[in-house]
């Protein structure tokens, strides 16, 4: 069986070995003017690799497509793949290596906020650029990061009012994993719930990775709530939904409305446990457009898995490479962190989920909020969507509005916090 280099990188889980080889392969070529090296940095090993490996694949898919279509301003993109190993400290080391030794002008990578926070100092000190594809909690304003995933207002400002108006639910039980993202999401949710005249009866947290939900589901049952807002992440999600059904609760009368439960978690828990529940994301695999179906086919062919599922962060990992390409071209093919940052401002691309635009002020993406109800086949049915992408407001929990931005090109207005 023949093995070319990409296949080797993709197939081998010996990414450690690949990472060790990479510099010697690429270091010489990186300086050649017909190529642009970029970092691709996700966890290929460890607990988070289940999700992050797919983000890495989506990034490499976009790079391969762009190269096949003639590259960026005539130059070939050369990905340098690094493994963050589900460990923020490793992330920091790998980011330093990419920025200092490989001298890449951009790194595509990071999934959790913990890993992003760990690499941020590297990018800020060296004036380099990170493209971050995950929905996250906001509350960050860096000139060295382009954020292409949703921020809280793009997942919640449509969701909470919709729950209250269309489902007629007013009493929320907020539950999440115990770290910054669920806590910030809860903060925004409470503002929106109170604005809409609803109330929240509890705001509870469990350890990350917690899998014994007996007591919590019992409390949900006793609390008198009529809807559950879940910011639970990771494999806890699976144990949560299973316990929910096993205790005899039903999504028909007491639906779980989630901000993190994606196609991956649904596939892992068994679709029947989530059937009838809701999730809010700008992207779902089930978006019935030509662009998305074609993307799904290409992704599945690329990873050689006919049953592979796509989800929001994966789609962002894909389209952000195209936005980056346009930014480089807007800069006349010159790829330095500064020219790319200037070039990316206001850049627009037709992604599988629809049109996305990078806000020139805070370098976050305009995205279209959508709500899906999960069916028995593990796929969502999109039951509500905005006509247009909405503006990203990373500080919405602190009172930021579209006409009153806290995070602008000049940096963060700290006096407002």
């Amino acid at each position, binding site marked *: *069986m023949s093995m070319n280099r990409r*296949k080797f990188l*993709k*197939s*081998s*889980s*010996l990414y450690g070995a690949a990472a060790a080889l990479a510099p010697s392969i690429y270091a010489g070529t990186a300086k050649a003017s017909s190529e642009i090296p970029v970092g691709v940095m996700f966890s290929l090993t460890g*607990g988070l*690799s*289940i999700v992050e*490996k797919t983000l890495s694949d989506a990034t490499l898919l976009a790079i391969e497509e762009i190269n096949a279509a003639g590259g960026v301003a005539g130059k070939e993109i050369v990905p340098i793949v690094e493994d963050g190993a589900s460990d923020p400290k490793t992330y920091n080391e790998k980011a330093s290596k990419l920025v200092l030794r490989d001298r890449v002008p951009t790194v595509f990578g990071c999934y959790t906020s913990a890993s992003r926070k760990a690499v941020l100092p590297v990018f800020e000190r060296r004036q380099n650029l990170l493209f971050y594809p995950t929905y996250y909690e906001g509350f960050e304003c860096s000139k060295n990061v382009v954020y292409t995933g949703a921020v809280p207002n793009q997942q919640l400002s449509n969701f909470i009012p919709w729950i209250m108006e269309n489902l007629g639910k007013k009493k929320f039980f907020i539950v999440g994993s*115990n770290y910054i993202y669920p806590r910030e999401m809860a903060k925004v949710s409470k503002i929106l719930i109170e604005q809409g005249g609803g109330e929240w009866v509890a705001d*509870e*947290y*469990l*350890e990350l*990775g*917690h*899998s*014994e939900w*007996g*007591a*919590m589901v*019992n*409390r949900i049952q006793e609390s008198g709530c009529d809807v559950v807002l879940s910011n639970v992440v990771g*494999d806890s999600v*699976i*144990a949560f939904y*299973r*316990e929910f*059904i*096993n*205790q*005899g609760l039903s999504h028909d009368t007491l639906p779980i409305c989630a901000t993190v439960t994606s196609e*991956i*978690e649904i*596939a*892992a*828990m*068994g679709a029947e446990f989530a059937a009838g529940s809701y999730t809010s994301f700008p992207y779902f695999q089930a978006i019935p457009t030509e662009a998305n179906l074609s993307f799904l086919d290409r992704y599945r062919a690329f990873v*050689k*898995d006919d049953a592979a599922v796509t989800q929001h962060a994966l789609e962002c990992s894909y389209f952000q490479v195209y936005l980056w390409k346009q930014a480089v071209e807007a800069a006349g093919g010159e790829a330095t962190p500064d020219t790319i940052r200037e070039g990316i401002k206001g850049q627009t691309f037709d992604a599988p989920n629809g049109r996305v635009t990078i806000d020139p002020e805070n370098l976050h993406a305009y995205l279209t909020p959508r709500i899906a109800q999960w069916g028995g086949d593990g796929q969502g049915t999109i039951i509500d969507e905005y006509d247009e992408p909405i503006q990203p407001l990373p500080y919405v929990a602190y009172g930021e509005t579209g006409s009153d931005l806290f995070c602008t090109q000049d940096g963060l207005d700290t006096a407002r916090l």
Partner: protein
Amino acid sequence: MADILFIGLSLSSILLLIALGLAITYGAMGVINMAHGELVMIGAYTAVLSGIYLNFNMFVALPLAFVTAAAVGLLIEKLVIRRLYGRIIDTLLATWGVAILLQQAIRLQFGATFFDVTVPGLGPGLQNIDVPSFLNQPFDVAGFTVQPYRTFIIAVTLLLAALTWYLFYRTRIGMQVRAIMRNPDMAASCGIDVRRVSALTFAYGSGLAGVAGVLLAGFKTVQPDMGASVVVDGFLVVVVGGVGSLLGTGLAALLLGQINGIVAVLSNDIVARAVVFGVVIVLIMWRPNGLFSFKNR
């Protein structure tokens, strides 16, 4: 109140399920088996794979997982642990290495990953098993919601505990095991084949871990590192109960499970966990050898 006690009982049964195998390998044989969690994981994967390829349901997977995990346990005993009896700290390190090997074997699909082959059911992804639908549908009895799956786990745990008790206290081989526990040299000089009996005991303890894996797979995700977190709880129960005491293990599981359940419902799970650890510390300070431990002469 009944439902709170039921949650506690359910937590107890899961603890006991994990600890039962450990009570034998650690309690009876003095092996700190860090790979116990991975044997649980292997049991869970046996259920996943037999479901995908052989269309077996959970009930058939239970004995199959017992046999698979016992076979793997036997292999570990023959290759590694056999050489380390009496060196308790060394068994900890060696079995930890075995644990990592087993995890990676599943993650790398026994090497198939290197050849670009994906085996459904293996690999780093999340897997699950189908629970027969009648175990998923709760029903009400006199205002109390019965959760069939948790009840099923409690029943299986009681059955396994009873079986283990019978094996240990009512059979010839059980008597030999207990003799070896007290004093291996004396047992050997009485004509007991210590190596053979120890190997079988270890395999039995491993098999119990496999059964636990199938039952856990019913409400947890199956993934290569699922075993790492359960093994700590298992050791907690065995140490509190008293090394080598089945009764102690059972009571410790009941106690810790109920404390966890009650505090979790009244306050929250994070506090519950802290309280459980606090209770364990106090208990160990009060009775360093655990609640029930036989006196050595």
